[in-house]
């Protein structure tokens, strides 16, 4: 039998304060921050920032939100977009009705409001599982568009029921330009990624995964299953609420109840399926796929010059068919999602002989 001594890392008595793995992790985080806050804003054009990078990052964040619930806690939601809409309408009304509230406070409060709503719509999770639970979370997806359409108070009695983004500024910095909006999105995203890692590496995250893998065993061990499930809905919806604000204010510039429809919820679900469950960074791969593939297909259609073959409607439908086919292909080839690429890359790096 092996003893404790056999498996201790051979760092010896003069072990450095940080292990190699910790140093590597630190280096990766630092490099990520340099790319996100130094290189990307300096290099990317306004078109790239506004049309590709911002939506990819925000949708990646939406994927993280749902992944916390689905990938880590093993629960389901088909109402992701509804919680995003709660976030953006909360933010709009907070800014409108509480003058002088700083932007970080607006985001935090919008997230908390979405979290409270998420807990309410997560209550069926205490009784149902799987498909039935999914169906019950659809309730949110139908309730909120109805609420925001029928009560114009939420959009400040606007004729079109549309809310437009307020001037984004923080500590006197104007965040209206593409670079400004990008930096706003990147900052919030970086903070939420950090929070997501804290969550999944805490006792809370561990107990979510325990419930996901074996609910009966989890309850027999004394894990408070019901409480943990509601906390999963709360935290996932907190993330989604803030994501919704970014989508409406930093990407689109306007929003209405139908911006956050069932299609959007399904997009978030696809991001999780394509990116991989129980991953954080995989969601950005999934989001890039969801955002970029339609753009690439557009360019392909233009390049192939097939517009004469058929009308625009048929070509659009054809694009959807191809998009769906690619999703199916990826799910067959990579059932664990594109994050398997990240994992394999990391393993290949680790497997290299140490010098």
């Amino acid at each position: 039998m092996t003893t404790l001594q056999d498996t201790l890392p051979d760092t010896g008595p003069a072990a450095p304060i940080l292990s190699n793995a910790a140093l590597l992790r630190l280096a990766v985080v630092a490099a990520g921050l340099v790319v996100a806050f130094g290189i990307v804003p300096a290099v990317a054009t306004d078109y790239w920032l506004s049309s590709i990078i911002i939506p990819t990052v925000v949708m990646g964040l939406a994927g993280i939100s749902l992944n916390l619930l689905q990938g880590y806690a093993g629960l389901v939601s088909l109402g992701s977009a509804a919680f995003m809409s709660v976030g953006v309408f909360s933010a709009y009304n907070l800014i409108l009705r509480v003058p002088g509230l700083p932007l970080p406070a607006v985001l935090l409060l919008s997230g908390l409001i979405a979290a409270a709503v998420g807990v309410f719509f997560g209550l069926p999770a205490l009784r149902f599982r799987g498909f039935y639970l999914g169906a019950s979370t659809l309730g949110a997806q139908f309730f909120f568009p109805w609420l925001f359409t029928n009560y114009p108070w939420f959009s400040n009695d606007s004729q079109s029921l549309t809310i437009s983004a307020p001037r984004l500024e923080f500590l006197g910095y104007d965040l209206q330009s593409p670079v400004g909006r990008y930096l706003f999105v990147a900052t919030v995203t970086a903070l939420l990624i950090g929070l997501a890692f804290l969550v999944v590496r805490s006792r809370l995250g561990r107990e979510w995964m325990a419930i996901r893998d074996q609910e009966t065993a989890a309850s027999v061990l004394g894990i408070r299953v019901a409480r943990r499930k509601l906390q999963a809905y709360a935290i996932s919806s907190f993330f989604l609420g803030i994501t919704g604000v970014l989508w409406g204010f930093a990407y689109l510039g306007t929003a209405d109840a139908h911006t956050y429809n069932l299609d959007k919820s399904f997009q978030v679900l696809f991001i999780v399926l394509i990116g991989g469950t129980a991953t954080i960074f995989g969601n950005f791969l999934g989001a890039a796929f969801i955002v970029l593939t339609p753009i690439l297909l557009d360019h392909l259609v233009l390049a192939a010059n097939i517009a004469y073959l058929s009308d625009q409607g048929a070509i659009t439908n054809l694009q959807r068919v191809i998009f769906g086919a690619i999703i199916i292909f990826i799910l067959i080839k990579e059932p664990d999602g594109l994050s398997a690429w990240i994992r394999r890359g990391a393993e290949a790096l680790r497997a290299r002989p140490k010098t």
Partner: protein
Amino acid sequence: MASLLELSDVSLSFRGVTALNALSFAVARGEICALIGPNGAGKSSLLNVINGVYRADAGDIVFDGRRFEAIRPGKAARLGIGRTFQHNALFRRLTVRENVLAGLSRHGGASFIENVFRFGRDRQERRDFSARADRVIAFLGLDAARDRIVSTLSYGIQKRVDLARALVSEPKLLLLDEPMAGMNQDEKTEMSRIIAEVNRAFGTTIVLIEHDVGIVLGLAHHIVVLDYGRKVADGAPDAVRNDPDVIAAYLGTVH
């Protein structure tokens, strides 16, 4: 010595099929009690009633001086009833260490906010959990597998992880559902040694289900024989071995 666990007239049925029929027996503090009997005798159902996975139709249970008719699994855990499973019920995508840490949940006092942001009671909890988990992992000889995902481990090691996960919370009563099922003779001997050692070192009262009568006779202080949900015999290994009813119901018949 007073008993730790006392069952009186416990009955359980599933849609009219009787699993347990007015069953009564007591488990003394600090003993190893083995439940034996043919498949379908109600042994697993009995464990499930004791820790609240099933609810008995009738009868009551006194555990550690508290009487209850029905208990929820979480409550049972917090009262100090630990449990392993007949079929693999590990958290398969977590590492050995994470599985064992999850077994400590009943001792966690920090709120989820403290856990996530690592302040307040979380610091103490993290240190405490980590020390307890490492101790049990070392005790069960699982150091080499510590950071492996459990689904990648061999069956025998997984059974041991299941035991570690139940043992780490230092239960007063440990229910082991076929801890040696599917093991070869060497693994059985090793597991049997570990169970005796747990009982000796921690004074844990153990109720276990095992089919291998040879192992049971050597390990248990007290044997309860079940057949068709009824108790056939109850006593010290030597007495049970020579009981004609037992020989007829269990040892003598082919199942």
